[in-house]
């Protein structure tokens, strides 16, 4: 019985191969983009975890000092007091974007994933200068000159150099340790920490890397896009499976009339959905791998440029993401087939073949859908106004998009009802009435199109607003003509004397790492100069802001810090336990994920007497000539002098990289929506004969009918695109005012780009025309005998 039932159900797909292809491709596209994004996220998080846990920091306690940096002397004191500890020196290698991690091979914990030095001569080569640096294969090409010999090792995190502690400290030009790790199984007789030094604090293992926390929002962004693509793909599957149910209404009735129990029928259909999901999911996982492999280098560049995070550019096959891909395929198939199965399991045996019964079920679904859409839009509004946090931001986005999509059929029906008043001709009136009747059949594809188009409007508005603001901000911020980095303090002093006669201003760029509020950040010391007073991009500030910074009675903070800790002008910022200053202004600082503060130069020097400036911003009458002199006469390498244009170009490159992946996913989503429209029009075309045949019989040619069908597809696409504009603007507002503020720490003014909308409208038209072309051709070439069958009731 089951076999015969399965054979009958399967025979539908065997006779409707295009429909089968649509379901499988829809599932593959939906799960593919989702899986691709998950693969990228898994790869990046794997890199962060590898980096974070290299020396067991995520499992072991650490000793820190509340009153200053740790030094080797602290490590020695702790060992002498009986503590089993291991020193770590970690930091960025200047000008390379790479990170140095130094460890002591004799005391490193067992959990550490450090290079094996047990081979003959390995340990001495590691310890004796010039030493050895271990790097990931992807990092070899990025190594600057002048480093110890490099050895390649897969287990090292990308972008990291692992070496001996003392060599690391030399490379970092630092005499401090970044942490001291406390090993497991400490001896019972050891001196308590508090007796050793009151400044020592035992801190819990770090739960994850700072980079992982910092990039969470970026990965959440990608996940949101993955979900959007999944939703768009799901519409395709829903449409195709829904159509397959519609076409098999009579078959269901016949099967049940011939004795196939309802449960068996529902079970067989569920099994069919499972098989389709398995096939589509498998293809989706393969597609996801391809998408991820193609996008990963871009993502790695973005993460490196935006957050300084190093991620391997090559993809590994992790079960986490391909299993989630399959789970999503099954969830998608269940969501697509669920409502049809539910309806089928509740309808009486004779009802499935009665179109009115399905129509009634569908009409109530459509009403529910419209109310649900309205409810979701209201929820989006409430979340947008009252919501707080990144999750609320994404929930607002989801509610907005889903609500708008659910309202598409109702909105289109109302618009078309309104438009139909303008047509007086009999054919025009028929076209409008018929178009309105067509909306339910095409609604899922149109909803998918609305999602993709509004995502496009939203993302392009956000990126455009971002670009416009960012370029203006760069012009303000990079007011100096040249940026010079000297190699040491002595050279810096000589350099200042060398250029003194050729410059309008030479402004040292000097900074130190401090705690800003409760998190690590950087404080800069700046000289009082018109370049800052006239150009610095302040978002808000006291009337005497620059005087107070110069006098050492005020501090400026960047927008990220202000928003993160809710610290604005007039409030007090803690830079150290004994150092507090009043905030006198907040400045925009796009592209920087961390908190930052600015104080007067003299105040900085008094607080950090050991730090002397090696970088300078220079304003000069003839910057190009001055640059030549610095290189030719002073002998500084060309790379150490950067002019304003180069900095801007680099910054813009980082900016473009940041949105590269977002744009790529956007284009892919649009492609998926185009496919959805094509699939729907193609499958619906096969069911159009009962509507077209009577009109054909009354005197319209097949070509005329095909042209009308094409016009109908274009009208629906244009109306959907028009509806997508306000939805997209809403999306952009949520992205700019909520998501980006939470994710990056800054807020941008929204700008609108009507020319982009016009282009999108054009693309929607082209897409709809392409999607409608084949179905229309088949109508134009339809043999009259097929149309006559409608009247013969032989179909």
């Amino acid at each position: 019985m089951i076999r015969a039932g399965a054979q009958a159900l399967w025979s539908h797909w065997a006779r409707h191969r295009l429909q089968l292809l649509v379901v499988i491709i829809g599932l593959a596209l939906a799960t593919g983009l989702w899986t691709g994004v998950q693969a990228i996220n898994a790869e990046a998080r794997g890199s962060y975890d590898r980096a974070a846990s290299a020396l067991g920091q995520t499992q072991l306690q650490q000793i820190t000092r509340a009153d200053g940096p740790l030094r080797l002397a602290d490590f020695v004191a702790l060992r002498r007091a009986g503590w089993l500890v291991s020193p770590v020196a970690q930091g960025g290698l200047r000008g390379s974007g790479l990170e140095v991690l130094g460890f002591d091979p004799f005391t490193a914990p067992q959990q550490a994933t450090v290079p094996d030095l047990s081979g003959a001569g390995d340990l001495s080569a590691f310890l004796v200068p010039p030493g050895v640096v271990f790097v990931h294969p992807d990092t070899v090409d990025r190594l600057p000159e002048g480093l110890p010999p490099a050895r390649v090792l897969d287990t090292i995190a990308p972008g990291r150099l692992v070496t001996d502690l003392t060599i690391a400290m030399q490379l970092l030009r630092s005499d401090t340790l970044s942490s001291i790790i406390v090993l497991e199984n400490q001896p019972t007789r050891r001196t308590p920490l508090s007796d050793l030094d009151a400044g020592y604090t035992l801190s819990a293992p770090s739960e994850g890397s700072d980079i992982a926390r910092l990039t969470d929002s970026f990965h959440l962004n990608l996940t949101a896009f993955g979900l959007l693509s999944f939703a768009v793909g799901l519409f395709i599957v829903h449409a195709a499976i829904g159509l397959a149910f519609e076409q098999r209404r009579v078959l269901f009735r016949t099967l049940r009339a011939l004795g196939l129990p309802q449960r068996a029928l529902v079970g067989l259909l569920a099994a069919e959905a499972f098989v389709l999901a398995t096939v589509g999911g498998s293809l989706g996982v393969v597609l996801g791998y391809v998408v991820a492999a193609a996008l990963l280098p871009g993502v790695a560049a973005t993460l490196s440029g935006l957050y300084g995070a190093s991620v391997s550019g090559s993809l590994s096959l992790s079960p986490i993401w391909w299993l989630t891909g399959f789970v999503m395929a099954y969830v998608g198939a269940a969501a697509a087939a669920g409502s049809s199965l539910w309806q089928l399991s509740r309808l009486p045996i004779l009802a499935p073949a009665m179109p009115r019964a399905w129509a009634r079920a569908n009409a109530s679904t459509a009403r529910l859908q419209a109310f649900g859409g309205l409810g979701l839009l209201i929820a989006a509004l409430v979340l947008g106004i009252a919501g707080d946090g990144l999750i609320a931001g994404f929930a607002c986005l989801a509610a907005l998009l889903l609500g708008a999509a659910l309202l598409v059929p109702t909105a289109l029906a109302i618009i078309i009802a309104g438009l139909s008043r303008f047509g007086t001709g009999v054919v025009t009136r028929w076209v409008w009435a018929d178009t309105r009747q067509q909306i339910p059949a095409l609604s899922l594809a149109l909803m998918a199109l609305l999602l993709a188009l509004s995502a496009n409007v939203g993302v392009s508005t956000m990126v455009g607003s971002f670009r416009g603001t960012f370029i203006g901000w760069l012009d303000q911020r990079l007011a100096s003509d040249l940026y010079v980095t000297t190699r040491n303090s002595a050279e810096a002093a000589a350099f200042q004397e060398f250029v003194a006669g050729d410059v309008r201003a030479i402004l040292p760029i000097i900074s130190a790492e401090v705690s800003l509020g409760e998190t690590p950040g950087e404080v800069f010391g700046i000289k009082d100069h018109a370049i800052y007073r006239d150009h610095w991009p302040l978002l808000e500030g006291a009337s005497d802001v620059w005087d107070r910074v110069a006098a050492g009675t005020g501090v400026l903070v960047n927008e990220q810090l202000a928003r993160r800790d809710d610290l604005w002008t007039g409030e007090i910022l803690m830079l150290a336990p004994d150092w507090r200053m009043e905030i006198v202004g907040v400045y925009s600082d796009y592209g920087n994920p961390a908190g930052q503060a600015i104080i007067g130069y003299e105040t900085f020097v008094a607080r950090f007497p050991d730090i002397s400036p090696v970088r300078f911003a220079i304003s000069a009458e003839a910057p190009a000539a001055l640059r030549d002199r610095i290189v030719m006469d002073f002998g500084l390498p060309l790379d150490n002098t950067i002019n304003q244009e180069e900095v801007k170009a680099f910054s813009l490159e980082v900016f473009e990289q940041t949105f590269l992946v977002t744009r790529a996913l956007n284009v892919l989503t649009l492609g998926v929506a185009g496919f959805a429209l094509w699939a729907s029009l193609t499958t619906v075309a096969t069911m159009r004969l009962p509507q077209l045949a009577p009109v054909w019989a009354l005197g319209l040619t097949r070509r005329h009918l095909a042209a009308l069908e094409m016009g109908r597809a274009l009208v629906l696409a244009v109306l959907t695109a028009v509806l997508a504009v306000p939805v997209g603007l809403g999306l952009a507002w949520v992205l700019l005012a909520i998501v980006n503020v939470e994710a990056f720490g800054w807020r941008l003014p929204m700008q609108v780009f009507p020319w982009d909308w016009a282009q999108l409208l054009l693309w929607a038209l082209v897409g709809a025309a392409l999607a409608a072309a084949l179905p229309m051709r088949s109508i134009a070439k339809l043999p009259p005998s097929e149309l006559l069958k409608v009247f013969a009731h032989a179909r």
Partner: protein
Amino acid sequence: MELLHATDVSKSFETGEGPLQVLRGVSLSLAAGTSLALTGESGSGKSTLLYLIGGLDVPDAGHIRIAGTDIAGLDDPGRAALRRGTVGVVFQQFNLIPSLDVAANLAFHARLSGRHDAGWTAHLAERLGLSALLSRYPEQLSGGQQQRVAIGRTLAAKPKLVLADEPTGNLDEATGDAVMDLLLELVSETGAGLLMVTHSMRLAARLDRQVGLRAGVIA
């Protein structure tokens, strides 16, 4: 031996204007190997009665016994088993499976009931003049040919009771007569009982007994 016994069967449907009483205490019976024509005007309730007997719907009141089983007491799987094993329905609209060819359609009900007999199915195909059409699909057949496939599909499962709902209603008179001849011959050959709904008194006269329905009661 009594094959079918319906007692005081009632059925109503909900409509926009309140409940519509379609059957009002109908009773009838049919012996194995005999045939009965159920006649009446449109809306008299004859198709509804046929569907109730076929286990396609459930009566509001009354009892229907088929081969000793009271089907009013059956749950959905039980009624499905009845349709698979005991009764066979020939619909006015043929209701063939459009995606299966003629051969698969002919064998389909028998396969569902687990009583597929290739020799018997081939014999039916020959008797019904379908041997040359076995690889065709329903859409490639005429109405008469489709109804012959539907009859073959039903008889291939060797049901005890054949229910036919206006089996010639969609066919011209000559084709309808030919189909009717085949139906009566083959039902007689299998020894099954036949209950046929028709509005044609001419066709009804060809069956052993005739019962008329008017406004939901036996006329």
